[in-house]
C-alpha cells in the first residue's frame, strides 16, 4: 500500500474487495471482566457482528439448591453476584422467609439494609474503577476504587468474619449482632466513601476525554430497554425511574427517604453517571438506618431446627446491584426446595449485547461491554 494519503484515499474509493475479519475476545481477557467470550466480526474498525458466548462459570446453582437444605444453599447464592454477596443473601433469605412465613426482627432488617447498601456501593466502586480503566484512565481509577472497597471489606470482616462471601444473613435474621463500635466505624467508612466518590467524580466526570468517549455512545430508548428486559441502572439511565426498592418495596425501604437517580438518553455516560449517583443515595440510606435502627434481637425466636416448607411457590424480586435480582422458589414439603431459579439481571442486560455493539468501533465495543457492568458469576449461575 502507498504511503501517500491521497493515493490511499483513492485506493479506498476504488471497488477493492475487502474481507471481514473475525476477532475473538475472551474468555481470558481483561476487558471482558470475567470468563466471558465474544466473537466480533469487524470490517476495518467497524463491528458488523457480535456473538456472545457464556457459561464458562456455570456451577449448577439451581440444581445444587434443589439438592440442599434451605439453609445449606445460602453459600451458593452468595457466589452469584460475588461483588455484592450480601445483596444475594438478602434476596434468597427474604424469598425463603416469605415462603415459610417467618417474621424477621426489625433490628435484623435494618442491619440487612445497611449491609446490602454497603455491598451496592462496593459493587458500583468496582464498576467505576474497571470502567475508568476500560475507557483509558489506566490504573488510577482502579486504585481510587480499591481504597474504598478495601475499607468496606474490612468492615464486613469485622461484622461477619469474612470479606466477600460472609454468609452473614440467616433465615429469620442475621447470624450475630453488630460489634460495639460499629456505628462509629461505619460512619468513618461512609465519610471515606464520600471522599472516594468526590475523587472519582473529579477524576472521571471532570475529564473531558472520558466524557467525550462516553457521551452519545449507543443511546437506548426506554421502549428498547424494556423490550430487551433491562433493569437496574441500565433501565434508569434511559430515564425510567424504576427501582424495586420503591416500586415493590421490601424490608424497611418504605421507611427510608431516598431518590432514584435517572439518566437522560441511556447512553454509556448516563449508565456511568447513574451508578455514581446511586452510591450517594446508598450512603444516605445507610445514614438513616444508623439513626433509626432499634435495639433488640437479631434472629427470630423459636426457629425450627430443620426448616420444612409445605406447598407453595413465589417469585421474589429485589433490587440487586445490576438490576432486578429475582428468586423463584417452589416448595413441595420437605427440607429442600422443589425448584429454585435465579432471575439474573446481568444475564438479561447482557442478552442485548449484539444489538448494542453492532455498528460501533472495536474500541467502543469494549467500553459498551464495560458499561453493562456484568458479573459472570451471576450470568452463568
Amino acid at each position: 500500500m502507498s504511503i501517500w494519503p491521497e493515493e490511499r484515499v483513492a485506493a479506498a474509493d476504488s471497488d477493492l474487495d475487502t474481507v471481514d475479519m473475525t476477532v475473538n475476545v475472551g474468555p481470558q481477557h481483561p476487558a471482558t471482566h470475567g470468563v466471558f467470550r465474544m466473537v466480533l466480526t469487524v470490517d476495518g474498525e467497524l463491528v458488523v457482528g457480535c456473538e456472545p458466548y457464556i457459561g464458562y462459570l456455570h456451577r449448577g446453582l439451581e440444581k445444587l439448591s434443589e439438592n440442599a437444605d434451605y439453609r445449606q444453599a445460602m453459600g451458593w447464592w452468595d457466589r452469584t453476584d460475588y461483588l455484592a454477596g450480601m445483596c444475594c443473601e438478602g434476596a434468597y433469605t427474604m424469598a425463603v422467609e416469605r415462603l415459610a412465613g417467618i417474621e424477621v426482627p426489625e433490628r435484623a432488617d435494618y442491619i440487612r439494609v445497611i449491609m446490602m447498601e454497603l455491598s451496592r456501593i462496593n459493587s458500583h466502586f468496582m464498576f467505576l474503577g474497571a470502567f475508568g480503566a476500560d475507557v483509558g484512565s489506566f490504573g488510577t481509577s482502579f486504585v481510587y476504587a480499591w481504597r474504598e472497597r478495601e475499607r468496606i471489606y474490612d468492615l464486613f470482616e469485622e461484622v461477619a468474619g469474612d470479606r466477600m462471601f460472609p454468609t452473614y444473613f440467616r433465615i429469620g435474621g442475621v447470624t450475630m449482632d453488630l460489634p460495639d463500635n460499629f456505628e462509629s466505624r461505619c460512619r468513618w467508612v461512609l465519610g471515606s466513601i464520600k471522599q472516594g466518590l468526590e475523587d472519582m467524580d473529579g477524576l472521571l466526570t471532570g475529564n473531558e476525554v472520558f466524557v467525550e468517549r462516553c457521551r452519545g455512545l449507543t443511546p437506548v430508548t426506554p421502549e428498547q430497554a424494556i423490550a430487551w428486559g433491562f433493569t437496574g441502572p441500565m433501565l434508569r439511565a434511559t430515564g425510567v425511574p424504576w427501582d424495586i426498592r420503591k416500586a415493590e418495596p421490601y424490608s424497611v425501604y418504605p421507611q427510608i427517604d431516598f431518590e432514584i437517580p435517572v439518566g437522560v438518553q441511556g447512553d454509556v455516560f448516563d449508565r456511568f453517571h447513574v451508578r455514581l449517583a446511586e452510591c450517594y443515595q446508598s450512603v444516605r440510606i445507610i445514614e438513616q438506618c444508623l439513626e433509626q435502627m432499634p435495639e433488640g434481637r437479631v434472629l427470630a425466636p423459636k426457629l425450627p431446627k430443620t426448616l420444612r416448607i409445605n406447598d407453595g411457590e413465589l417469585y421474589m424480586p429485589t433490587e440487586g446491584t445490576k438490576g432486578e435480582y429475582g428468586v423463584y422458589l417452589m416448595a413441595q414439603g420437605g427440607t429442600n426446595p422443589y425448584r429454585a431459579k435465579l432471575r439474573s439481571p446481568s444475564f438479561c442486560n447482557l442478552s442485548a449485547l449484539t444489538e448494542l455493539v453492532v455498528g460501533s468501533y472495536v474500541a467502543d465495543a469494549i467500553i459498551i461491554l464495560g458499561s453493562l457492568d456484568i458479573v459472570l458469576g451471576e450470568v452463568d449461575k
Partner: protein
Amino acid sequence: MSSEPVIGEPEIAALVRERLPDIPFEASETKTYADLRVAPEHFLALVTGLRDDAELSFDLLRNIVALDMEEAGLEAKYQLYSFPHGHALQITVPAPIPSCELPSLTGLYPAANWHEREAAEMVGLVFTGHPDPRNLLLEEDLRIHPLRKAHPLQKAEILQGIEDGPPGVEV
C-alpha cells in the same frame, strides 16, 4: 417488623378476566403474585392480550422458569410486569406431552431469547419459532437436561458426547 413486600394486586386476575373474556384460565395466588394457569393452545393469545390491552399492558418479561413436574410433564412459568400500571403476575403453562413444545415469545418480547434458550437446555422444553435454539450455558453439543428430576446430581461428571436423548421426547 416483617420483610413483607407490597406486591401486585389480588384483583389482577379479575381484571384480566374482564378484559380478555374469551381466554379460559385458572387463577390462583402464589405468595407474591397472582398465577394464571392456561392451556398451551390459549397461551399465545393470553400473552398477546396481556401485552397489547391498554388496561393491562404487561410490557416487561421478567423471567421464565422451566420446571420438570415429573408425571405431570414439563411446565413453564412466565413472570410479567407492567410499567404503565405497576402490576405484575405469573403465567403457568403446562407443555403438551410428549412433544414438550411451546410457542416462542421472542416475537412479542425480545428479552425472551436467552431465557428460552436456557429453559430449553436445562429441562428440555422446545420453543417453536425460536430464532437461535442453541445451547447457551452448556456445551454446544451436549444434549442433556440437568434440571430434570431424573438427572442425577453427581460429584463429577464427564459429559462430552453423552446424550439424554433428543430434547423434548422423554418426560
